[in-house]
């Protein structure tokens, strides 16, 4: 998120050195200190006081809008961001927050308008592209959504794993699907973040969806070592092997689910997810025996 903070006052600090300004800064510091103490009402009250002193400060309106956004008081938040934009049109962040507020209140058309304007002004904004991609996703414009996720990831020096997941989901919804783009998108994430479980899971899921059992198994085998000891991993392996047609290896995997449960600490082996994995493995073994 953006940082309104004290940066907004820097021009004031450096260009006006009157006693009045000094007094204002003292008040500001006092207010910052009081704001430090946290509740929404106190923070709003302090910002109100600051705005009385300086009613044309767009940054303060934006700051107050952020507090309203945090509190999900959307109408006040929108009012403040609109006013910030009116006072200081070059404060592009105001436009972003308007788009964000519209998105959160499901006014997707308005959100799209604001965000498109914003990314025109700030074309390298990962947040702008991400939120616009999310708006397009809501409007089922998957191709556009994927395009803006691409731009968000490209513009971001350190994109979170979440971005790759969102893009993957959008690409899965696109018709016709582009398998290479889907797989490469995930691999791009792996190249960026290493073999983190979120991306490996999706690679397994994708190849499973494609019926590419060998590839799915290969990605499964790249799970982090601690996970490869868990009943869930062996269960997933059993399922993939079964689908691949390797019945005897699938049986071994399912049996390992059951055997490995006993290896878990006494505090873990009765936990519901592990018991469920065991029950699934037992059912799968019975089904395999029948066939």
């Amino acid at each position, binding site marked *: *998120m*953006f*940082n*309104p*903070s*004290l940066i907004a006052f820097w021009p004031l600090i450096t260009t006006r050195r009157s006693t009045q300004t000094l007094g204002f800064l003292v008040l500001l510091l006092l207010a*910052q*200190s009081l*704001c*430090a*103490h*946290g*509740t929404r009402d106190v*923070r709003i009250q302090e910002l109100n006081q600051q705005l009385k002193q300086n009613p044309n400060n767009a940054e303060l309106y934006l700051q107050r809008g*952020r507090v309203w956004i*945090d*509190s*999900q008081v959307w109408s006040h938040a929108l009012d403040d961001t609109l006013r910030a934009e009116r006072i200081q049109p070059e404060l592009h962040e105001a436009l972003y927050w308007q788009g964000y507020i519209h998105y959160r209140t499901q006014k997707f058309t308005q959100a799209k308008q604001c965000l498109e304007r914003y990314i025109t002004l700030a074309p390298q904004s*990962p*947040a702008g592209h*991400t939120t616009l991609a999310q708006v397009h996703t809501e409007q089922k414009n998957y191709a556009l959504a994927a395009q803006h996720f691409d731009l968000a990831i490209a513009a*971001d*020096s*350190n*994109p*979170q*794993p*979440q*971005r790759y*997941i969102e893009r993957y989901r959008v690409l899965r919804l696109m018709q016709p699907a582009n398998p290479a783009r889907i797989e490469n998108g995930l691999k791009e994430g792996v190249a*960026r*973040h*290493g*073999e*983190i*479980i*979120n*991306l490996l*899971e999706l690679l397994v899921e994708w190849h499973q969806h494609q019926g590419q059992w060998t590839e799915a198994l290969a990605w499964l085998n790249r799970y*982090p070592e*601690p*996970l490869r*000891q*868990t009943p*869930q991993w062996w269960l997933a392996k059993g399922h993939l092997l079964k689908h691949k047609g390797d019945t005897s290896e699938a049986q071994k995997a399912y049996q390992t689910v059951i055997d490995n449960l006993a290896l*878990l*600490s*006494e*505090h*873990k*082996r*009765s*936990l*519901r*997810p592990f*018991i469920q994995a065991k029950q699934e493995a037992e059912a799968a073994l019975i089904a395999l025996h029948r066939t």
Partner: protein
Amino acid sequence: MRTTHQPWYACLFGLAFIIFTSFANAAVISRGPYLQMGDNDNMTIRWRSDSATDSVVRFGSSPSALSQTVSVSGTRTEHIVKLTGLSASTQYYYSVGSSTQTLAGGDNTYRFTTSPNPGTASPTRVWLIGDAGTGTSSQTAVYNAYLNYPGAANTNLWLMLGDNAYDSGTDAEFQSKMFNMYPVLMRQVPIWPTLGNHDGASANSSTQSGPYYDIFTLPKAAEVGGLASGTEAYYSFDYGNIHFICLDSYETSRATNGAMLTWMQNDIAATDKQWIIAFFHHPPYTKGSHNSDTESELIDMRQNALPILENYGVDLVFTGHSHSYERSFLLDGHYGNSSTFTASHKVDGGSGREDGTGAYVKAPGASRAGAVYTVAGASGKISGGTLNHPAMFTSLNQLGSVILDVNGNRLDFKHLNSSGTVTDYFTLIKGSDTTPPTLTAASAVSASAVSVSFSEPVAAASGGTAANYIINNGVSVNSASVSGSTVTLNTSALTSGTNYTLTVNNVQDVSNNVIAANSQRSFTYSSGVSSSSSSSSSSSSSSSSSNSTSSSSSSSSSSSSAGATSSGSPTTVSFQQGTNAYSGSVDTYVASGAASNNYGTANAILADADDGSRDKLISLLKWNVASIPAGKTITAASITLRVFNSSAGAYNLWAMTTAWAPGTATWNNTLPETNRGAQIGSFTPTSNTTYTLTLNAAGIALVQSWVNGSANNGISIASGGTTDGVDIRSNEYGTVAQRPSLTVTYQ
């Protein structure tokens, strides 16, 4: 009239110029050092300098032996140096600076201790603060209360629960409201933070940018255990046998199918650590300055994160956000708003206190054993609220912090308020006792009494039931009395030289585990002496320790066998400099107002809160107890002091936690108020006479640790606040009998 001394002035000017330019070129540390990402063999040390230099950390096993160096070439003001190849569970001292200059460190406050090896259960102290970064006296009071609390000097981990720097988490705010507030602890204990909403005002979790992400070096590739998350916004790490999970409840998607919670599900499924502790900023249950029934982050965390955490057996969950202290019962399965909370959500609706309704116990084999949820957001400010969430055992509008002491399967939790008072506490036991007692020995202690030893304390009811004991050869058991793990049977007359078999049934331990049916032991009664089948008893007195005065109680007829607690006659030894040629005692005192002075040769040791000229005085004493045989159990300990200048005020005895020597100890290199552990006793020396001070359980444990081979740093004597000082004869005093002595009883 002026005389001319131009050449002299020129020299002086030149010298001044050299000194000035030298200082002008010297870098000054402006932040830290502080510790990050510590594990069993690595530690990352960070600091900021006011001008760019290369980065050098010198470290070693003592402040005076920083024999190893790690350097990072190139110049910078933000320094990040990773030490690698360290030894587990080892204390290191360090300094930071450049290749030409030491900026900070080199004394015993610049130190850290590496983690135990992964998976190793080790006593662990964790300090937790939340919403601390106000920069106010309230924040300072919470910090000082903790520093004064026993064990603070041995803190292993420090968790920050978000809103670490108000108001917007700017770099300047982190400087003034975090770095400047905790100057000492930061250089000693690795910090593990989570992002609060105020920190998030200047940070961006999506891109991991902004002051919060710039300041902290956090794992995203499983560098300290756990699963790689790919982001510093949420992460996990291990410390010994504890797995910690940190979530971002503010800026990262809290959806169940989002990256964070899917990662968490895998991470918690994969951990094999005994304890699981999660922390994030927004509380799932609170009625403080925030309301978990109405605020989206709080609802999301409760509805989305908690089911996963509980499914996989989380033990404790810590949060902040509300500026209060709220601590739950042992809970499970409550994901709705507060009006839907019922008694069925309480796994244990008691206090969790051993002196109350009993410790919370998470039984092994339980599928849903419960977790305790804590809001600890009052480390810098209190903001009230209705404080009436029904999930909470207690809710306090009180400044404070949380202390965890984890040891094996036991976790002790305390809420320490800003006045230094523990206002809430509980114990969580991971796994109940499922081991039945065993019969370890039986021996006749007289012609009509048999002593029976068990592997653990037994319940009074079953252990005290005579019918549960059968002795063959026509001996009847008339009564049974329990004392811990020993039961004494009053029997009909035993015949000398006869071999008897004792059969025990139905005896339970305190957790109701029942002894194996027909457990048996044989013993023989011989007039005066008996023997059991497992080993012969001895009636000789214990040998005295060399160079110390010892005494032993009269012969006993206890016996031992495999698995039994070692037993024998209690032996008491005294250690006093010069008595029986003992020369293992040292003492001195240090003064805060003469912080570099050493008083090791004084014939008195002094203590005072302010002696009028040297401010605080604290005495340090130490005895070598190596003559106590290894494996012995200390049962009592006392210290005898001869006071010759009395005081009306109270004085406390503390365990010292840092090494010192009488010839070099100063206030500066011992910092006795910081480097102290548990309080082990106290006294008010109102007369000029000899005082024998019986040490409390912590004192006995301290002496036991010395016997067990842990570092013996002795004890300190400090004023409890009085400025009416006390003077005590020291080891240098001429009359040997008036020198300090330590008396220890062991078995």
